[in-house]
């Protein structure tokens, strides 16, 4: 496979040798993988629950309230169950995740008015709706990363496709497409987001769709240049003189050689995605509340300046994530720098 050629392996080794980037990559990937299992880390449902001699696994399975002596068929409320005298009196027990909070649960029975300052029970305090900040940060991180990764994947695909077509065919095709892209990129992005979000719901997929309509443009410029350059190289001419099809030339000869800008830009695209989602959430045009989100926490922090734990914890999380991603991006760029790959 061309994607795992020796050159690629060399580049990977070089990337590993750049310690800062490599550790940033490990930390960020570990955090992301960890966040995929947020339900097991941070949840108000217990892993295992023993009720009247029977074992239950609420995280993995749905149990109605009736099961635990309630009246309804809706999901049991394990927080109130835990505190109910009925539960405490019997031979019942439960094993809770390390952080026993649900990001959507409002702790309205806490003393004082929300947002509550950090305490032993809520390590980072609660937000203005009395929800646990740590839980919201964790789930917000997962949404942020997923959003950004999906967005990057879609916009990269579009960017390669459109830039590649422009570069490969050149001439009139290129000219017309370039003008269309210029018109398209001058659309006011924020208004489009607001309008589409108002007409349809502001759901995860709609937001990704709208953002990816604009995100590919930058990359397509790079791909266009790359394809234009490689198309005129001799090995493409050789392939032509050997009677190879244009499909082969496009995908086997040009594309693998033109992927360098894609890979070097990838971490920065991810950073852009995180930034975009946070900004939209901050402005209130992002994901529908009560979805846990960093942008929303930031705007709460701004509205509740007397509760600095909101803004500080969010800013630290955002800053760390973006910093790690930037380090990765730097490392990748250095590892892929063609000027250092002559050896």
């Amino acid at each position: 496979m061309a994607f795992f050629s020796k050159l690629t392996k060399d580049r990977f080794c070089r990337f590993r040798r750049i310690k800062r980037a490599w550790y940033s990559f490990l930390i960020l990937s570990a955090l992301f993988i960890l966040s995929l299992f947020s339900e097991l880390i941070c949840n108000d449902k217990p892993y295992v629950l023993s009720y009247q001699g029977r074992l239950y696994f609420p995280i993995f399975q749905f149990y109605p309230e009736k099961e635990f002596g309630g009246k309804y068929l809706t999901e049991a409320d394990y927080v109130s169950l835990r505190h109910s005298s009925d539960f405490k009196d019997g031979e019942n027990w439960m094993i809770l995740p390390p952080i026993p909070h649900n990001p959507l649960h409002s702790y309205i029975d806490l003393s004082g008015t929300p947002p509550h300052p950090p305490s032993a029970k809520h390590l980072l305090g609660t937000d203005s709706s009395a929800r646990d900040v740590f839980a919201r940060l964790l789930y917000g991180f997962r949404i942020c990363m997923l959003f950004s990764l999906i967005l990057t994947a879609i916009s990269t695909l579009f960017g390669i496709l459109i830039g590649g077509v422009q570069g490969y065919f050149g001439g009139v095709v290129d000219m017309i497409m370039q003008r269309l892209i210029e018109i398209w990129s001058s659309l006011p992005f924020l208004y489009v987001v607001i309008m589409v979000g108002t007409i349809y719901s502001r759901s995860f997929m709609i937001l990704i769709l709208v953002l990816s309509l604009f995100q590919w443009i930058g990359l397509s410029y790079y791909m266009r240049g790359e394809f234009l350059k490689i198309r005129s190289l001799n090995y493409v001419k050789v392939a032509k003189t050997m009677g190879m099809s244009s499909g082969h030339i496009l995908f086997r000869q040009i594309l693998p050689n033109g992927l360098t800008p894609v890979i070097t830009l990838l971490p920065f695209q991810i950073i852009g995605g995180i930034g975009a989602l946070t900004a939209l959430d901050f402005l209130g045009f992002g994901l529908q509340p009560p979805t846990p989100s960093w942008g929303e926490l930031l705007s709460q922090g701004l509205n509740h300046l007397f509760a600095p734990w909101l803004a500080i914890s969010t800013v630290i999380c955002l800053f760390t994530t973006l910093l790690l991603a930037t380090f990765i991006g730097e490392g990748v760029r250095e590892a892929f720098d063609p000027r250092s790959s002559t050896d």
Partner: protein
Amino acid sequence: MDPTNSDEISRDHILSVIDLSIGIGRTSGVLQLTDGVSFDLTEGQIHGLIGESGCGKSITSLAVMGMLPEPGGILLSGEIMFRGNNIFQMDETRLNRLRGTKVSMIFQEPFAAMNPLIRIEKQMLEIFEYHSVDFDRHKKIRSLLSEVGLTDHGRILRSYPHELSGGMLQRIMIAMSLLLDPEVLIADEPTTALDVTVQAQIMNLIVRLREERKMSVLLISHNIGLMAQYADCISVMYAGQVVEKNEIEPFLAHPSHPYSRGLMGAIPRLDQSNHPIVSIPGQVPEPGNYPAGCRFRKRCSLATEQCISRPPKKTEGSNGSYLCHY
């Protein structure tokens, strides 16, 4: 062979370029790059195409493969006949079948002619994917590598292009171009990017292969010494036109066109210590900026009134043909 007996010649002509004019579409109009280029390739012969950079040599050679300059290349007039079929009337499928199998090409810079991401073996095998062949592919590759003078096949085939030297790559390039046993080999400055010692090896290799395989070679170069040594016939190109065409010996003895004489005068000679190297003043005019009348007149010491007033007609002499008033 008697060059005046045209019937005799045309039977042996494997490839004929007839009155080829290629232009390129610009917003300001069509820019003509070659003007009425004609020459013939005889079976088993090396035909040299010589001229300074920018004379249209490479454009002509790519046209033989059915490729026009991109973007915007236009065929203005003329045809290229390969065994009686006009290349420009073939569709893409037939052209792709012709490329590599009947006509193949080696390029100037071997480093740039290989995909840097693919191993040599894979690059060679990929050629077969587009042409059905009935021989053992791996065996063929190895026998060709021996034929071009390479040993240690295993290591070479496992290598990436950047791990090999220029001379090796050019040999591999030649082996690659011969994979499908072409009848015509176009060598576009095959030795320009190589060391002098390797140059001779590569040229001897091409000559030997031509003899063994009865292959025709279109040798493109700006090195007249190379031509003198290896070519059988020669066409001199200047500013998009073939200005002189002849067999090599009479050409070397009596170059007819002033430009040919200029090229000959510009060769450094070891046998005559006092022989001055004469350069041709000026530069090749840019396409679209050709002077009226004779295109060479601004650099020609013989130019007179009639060179300005009208373009020269082709003069057929006993010494081939040339494009000059004198």
